[in-house]
């Protein structure tokens, strides 16, 4: 059975989820200490201190890579996407509004890079999101939330079902249901009206349920799930 690596830093699940939820703040809020700190780093980078950019990467690499992984479903593609995201961030760092949090901008860029990469993959198919991440994504651990064969199958089915959604639905579901952002935050990241995002989310959830239900009733599963 394949395990799942929880954070090496030792943070527990609630920390991760809490961290996830606090990443995106709505504009108009008072500048947070984190935003001020990032603004300081950005000024240093723009002044020519490129080594300071490593701090920005190390701070947000896990989040960027996770989102890319969940949208693209392929470990190698997620790696390439994350690299491209940070290169773009470095290139266009001067466009960042230093009075606003960096996360929505970073996530918007991540989604855009993933979309670009997804389109290229459609033109030159080699790997597929339908291949659920395995060894490279996870390690043996007793903390694996999918302990047992049935759970692992469940996990595989969810990845495959995600792959069956349209790009817009998948991005909306990943940001809302997997990343745990609110619909307003997702709408802000995608620069789409909230009603559009809700529509994509509802369609995505229904499709996802239908696909997983159908897979669960397949001959291999004997309708056990």
């Amino acid at each position: 059975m394949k395990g799942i690596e929880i954070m090496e830093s030792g943070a527990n699940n609630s920390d991760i989820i809490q961290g996830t939820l606090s990443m995106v703040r709505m504009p108009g809020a008072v500048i947070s200490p984190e935003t001020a700190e990032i603004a300081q780093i950005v000024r240093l980078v723009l002044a020519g201190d490129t080594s300071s950019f490593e701090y920005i990467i190390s701070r947000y690499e896990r989040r960027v890579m996770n989102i890319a992984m969940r949208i693209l479903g392929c470990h190698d593609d997620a790696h390439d996407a994350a690299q491209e995201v940070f290169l773009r961030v470095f290139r266009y760092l001067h466009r960042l509004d230093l009075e606003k949090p960096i996360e929505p901008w970073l996530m918007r860029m991540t989604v855009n890079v993933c979309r670009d990469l997804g389109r290229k993959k459609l033109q030159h198919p080699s790997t597929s999101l339908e291949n659920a991440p395995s060894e490279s994504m996870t390690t043996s651990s007793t903390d694996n939330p999918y302990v047992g064969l049935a759970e692992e199958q469940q996990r595989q089915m969810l990845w495959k079902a995600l792959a069956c959604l349209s790009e817009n639905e998948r991005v909306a579901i990943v940001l809302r249901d997997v990343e745990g952002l609110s619909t307003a935050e997702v709408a802000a990241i995608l620069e789409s009206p909230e009603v559009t995002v809700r529509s994509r989310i509802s369609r995505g959830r229904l499709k996802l349920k239908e696909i997983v239900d159908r897979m669960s009733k397949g001959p291999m599963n004997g309708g056990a799930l």
Partner: protein
Amino acid sequence: MSCVFSRELLALHAENDLPESEGRIVARHLLECPECEGFLDRLSQRQSQLKLLRLEAIPQSTLTRMRRGVLSQIENSPQSLGWSVRIERTLWLGFRRHAFVLSSLAVVVVSATLFAQMRQTARPDTTAATKQTAVFADANTLIRPAGYRDWISVGSSMRSNIPDAHSLANASSGNSHNIYIDRAAYRMFSLTGKFPEGAVLILETSGAAGKQPIALQASVKDSRFDGGWGFFNFTGADGTIKDKAESLGGKSSCRTCHEERGKSDHVFTQFHPALKTAT
């Protein structure tokens, strides 16, 4: 399922994504519809399973590899940024406000457009003018220019003092002279005070009654001819206007008079207000 209640609303209600008013409608319906309640339970179960994906994490080694890749690429940042990004960054950091950057770009675009337009105006394509206006059937035979009445009209005998040689038309007889110059030549003359190679002037004599000309003559600036100008008479012996005309050779009366009395390069600019004011 037999109940026709919106599945989309139920899907949003599963994670409290509905506005309050719609959420209340769904909640009321669920109280009286066990079928939808069951559907929502199953959907919520799938949602819980989906959320477990967020617990999967990327190995640190992969993150480190990615980070090293990025850092190695930005080490020589000034070269890797590209000139357009460097210009943009300079402007951005210089002004720090988008409005100023946009204004600067607008000024640059407008200036470039005006500069290009000025260059275009200052150097008209005289070759094109020659091709459009003076068309020769052979070395000495000019084809009557079509549409010369759309050219620039530089004067009329009714208001000017045309030399005696053109006296077959005058105000008392009811005839009139109209002189036209092609547009490209006029533009060039306006700018430089000189007629460009290929410039064509037409002298049309109209009778009092008819709209058709009773005489048509042309002069073409062409270095192949004596004095740099060729003179052509399209008026036939029977009074009709011919389609072609041969150059009036040697010291024709046209050439002699124009050489002696034309104020500017064989042309009677002194009689034509448009040419006088152009310079």
